[in-house]
């Protein structure tokens, strides 16, 4: 069609286009980041209230050097301890993550260390396959199973759920379902004893 452009012009054009795109994205990111962070904080608070069944209050505890402390430690893993109206602890909400089928799955679950049972589970972040893997957050039947389940969890094929610790996996989304189960089991293996010892 037209005469071939020189290599210099090709490289220059692509570099300029890339630089413009970069600047535009940085600018928009700067403008939207605070709002996105606020939205996420609000969503987290909603999720904490859901998995702890609307506690009267909750406080944040941090895992530092193998123990739980109320002192703020920005980089440490944290749990949220819910209390009822009399100030008695009702359980912990724990945020944990691991790679799923497409991208990291981040979820929050409520755990009662006295009974070693789950109180509930909500997925905070996932990019699992729409229509299949995303059932780990959208399918009420799957999500609802995590209330009152004994730990450690065991995944069984859909419809085969019988024992207290068993969870029906989603047909066609084995990896996504197993990811949810493994996130919870791993978090509890790591922190369960600490939570049981917590005041």
């Amino acid at each position, binding site marked *: 069609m037209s005469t071939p452009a020189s290599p210099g012009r090709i490289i220059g*054009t692509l570099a300029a*286009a890339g630089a413009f*795109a970069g600047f535009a994205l940085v600018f928009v990111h700067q403008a*939207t980041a605070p709002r996105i962070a606020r939205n996420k904080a609000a969503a987290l608070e909603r999720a904490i209230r859901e998995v702890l069944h609307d506690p009267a209050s909750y406080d944040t505890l941090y895992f530092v050097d193998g123990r739980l402390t109320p002192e703020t430690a920005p980089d440490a893993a944290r749990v949220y301890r819910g209390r009822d109206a009399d100030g008695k602890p009702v359980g912990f909400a724990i945020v944990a993550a691991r790679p799923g089928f497409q991208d990291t799955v981040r979820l929050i679950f409520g755990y009662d260390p006295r009974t070693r049972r789950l109180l509930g589970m909500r997925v905070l972040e996932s*990019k699992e396959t729409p229509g299949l893997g995303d059932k780990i957050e959208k399918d009420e039947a799957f999500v609802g199973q995590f209330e009152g389940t004994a730990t450690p969890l065991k995944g069984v094929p859909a419809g085969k759920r019988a024992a207290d610790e068993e969870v029906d996996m989603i047909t066609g989304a084995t990896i996504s379902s197993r990811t949810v189960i493994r996130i919870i089991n791993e978090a509890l293996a790591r922190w369960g004893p600490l939570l049981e010892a917590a005041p």
Partner: protein
Amino acid sequence: MKQTTTPSQDLMRGIWRENPVLIQMLGLCPALAVTNTVANSLAMGLATFFVLCGSSLLVSLCRKLIPHQIRISTYILIIASFVTIADMVLEALTPEIHKALGAFIALIVVNCMILGRQEAFASKQPVGRALLDAMGTGAGFLVAMLMMGGLRELLGNGTLLGFAVLGPRYEPWIVMILPPGGFLTLGLWLLLLNWLQERKAERK
């Protein structure tokens, strides 16, 4: 290039006569996947509209600067930038809808309807006509998305935009908001539109 169409034709043809989804069968992936409610369809349609207009505007502005050999990579770069902007803005303004659309926002990049308009039209036309064409095509896509989303939400959930329309005694056809419902709905609309077309042709 010789002008063979008027500006109003540039705008209007994408909306109906050459509708990207219903006639050209482009952009079917989002049209099937995220149209289970009117709100999702609307957000997806508007995001695509924004990306299409922005890209066409920029591609048309830069059409003499971009060497022929690297035009496709440059178009993709431009489109991807607009998609990322749309992604961040949606996440900041409507986190619920952003979550519901999930991976599909990022996939606007590979909607061949958008790249198609750049390659076939915006890269050869002055800015005004390119923008009109993009607005027409984007509006056509939005119309198709709403036709899909409206029918699916109405039959599958008994609501429109979240408002109960069919009353409490209506038993929702759940299948319509599940993936098979997307294919059923698209098939029904195509059937109806083609039937109308044929009838019109026979009358002549």
